[in-house]
């Protein structure tokens, strides 16, 4: 079973590659000014978990991280 997750992006690291935005436009966006990543949602839900992890490993600068909310947190939510 996929766990709930929370996404964080480090805009200092982001190189504006557009990779995340092209794979998952519902989750990631890009600033028109500096081309860097913006989040549409930090908690895209369990369905998106695998796709998000794919993007995390492909991001050229390691600017995206995910934290699985542990079972306790999910139960409490």
């Amino acid at each position, binding site marked *: 079973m996929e766990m709930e997750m929370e996404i964080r992006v480090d805009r*200092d*690291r982001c*190189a*504006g*590659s*557009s*990779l995340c*935005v*092209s794979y998952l436009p519902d989750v990631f966006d*890009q*600033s*028109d*000014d*500096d*081309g*860097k990543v913006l989040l549409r949602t930090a908690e895209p839900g369990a369905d998106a978990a695998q796709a998000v992890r*794919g993007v995390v*490993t*492909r991001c*050229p*600068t*390691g600017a995206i991280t995910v934290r699985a909310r542990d079972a306790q947190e999910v139960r409490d939510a």
Partner: protein
Amino acid sequence: MPKSLKAPDQAPLVETVVPGTSDRAWIANGYDEVRAILSDTRFSTTPPAETAEASRRLVQPGNLLQYDPPEHTRLRKMLTGEFTLRRVRTLEPLVEGIVEDRLDALEGAGQPVDLVGQFVWPTASLTGCAMLGIPRDDQTELTRHLDNNRLDNPDREQRDMAGTAYLVYLGKLMRQKRRDPGDDLLGRLIRDHGRSLTEAELTGTAATLLASLIPITGGTLGLGLVGLLENPDQLALLVERPELIDHAVEEVIRSVTIIPHASPRTAKEDVAIGDQVIKAGDFVACSLLEANGARPPGEPQDTLDITRDNSGHMAFGHGLHYCLGASLARMELRAAISRLLRRFPKVRLAVPRDELRFTAKSVETLPVTW
């Protein structure tokens, strides 16, 4: 790093010396090793020198590939807004129009036709010049300079003269844009950041972008078409299932890997990669070609598979120097390849495959019929 440096075998990370010196160097061929090195900021792309200050003075102004943070961050941020996915989508109709015009011209010219001269270079240079705001009248001259300046041009004198003429042209263009910045990438760069950029930085930025737009993207299109034409089953599959185009474009980019080695890196401190240690001061050449399992120009493209999952390929590099123009290049290749196949679904080589001649980054001519 000298071009003659070659891996003695294809081990993932090979220790060697820079020929003619005692400087230690490494060649990374393995996917994991290349990925680790390119994403590690303990490696520098600034030309090495005695002191950090001397090293910074060796940087070719405007060539992002040679800057380290924080200067790299400063310069790259001025350009990233021009290459977002949204911006690239707004440019798509322009590129599609250029492609359709060329296809009309091909149809009018009759068969056989040289796809490289009549389709590949015109598409790449018209797109590049439109983006950068380079007048149509200047394009023939510019593409001739670029062509004569190829690293593998045996005529040294012609090469040097072309290089000088190219930089003189771009310098003049940038001075003119300072006076009258148009609504193009370079004009907007001057309007928004002109005061914090030197003339040399502006000219170097234009040189980098133009070289990426014409020889690099055009070279990929030409070599990619060779790959498709010599794999008729793959070409037929794409004609039958046009929805595979994005996959096919990505596979073309991987199979060509037009920049075979990433810019040379120097270790700023000792770095362990696997169980080997790259020492401070060592050079590293990362083979994108080997890491991607690609074949150099002219070798049979026997790895082309437009349905493969190649999503982690490194033809655009990896890490903070990841190609700035990747989305644009994808869009241009998609427009060119999908529209060519829609217009000429039966396109095929008009000469035997082994008569094709290649340069370091392109195919010289590509005669086809349909």
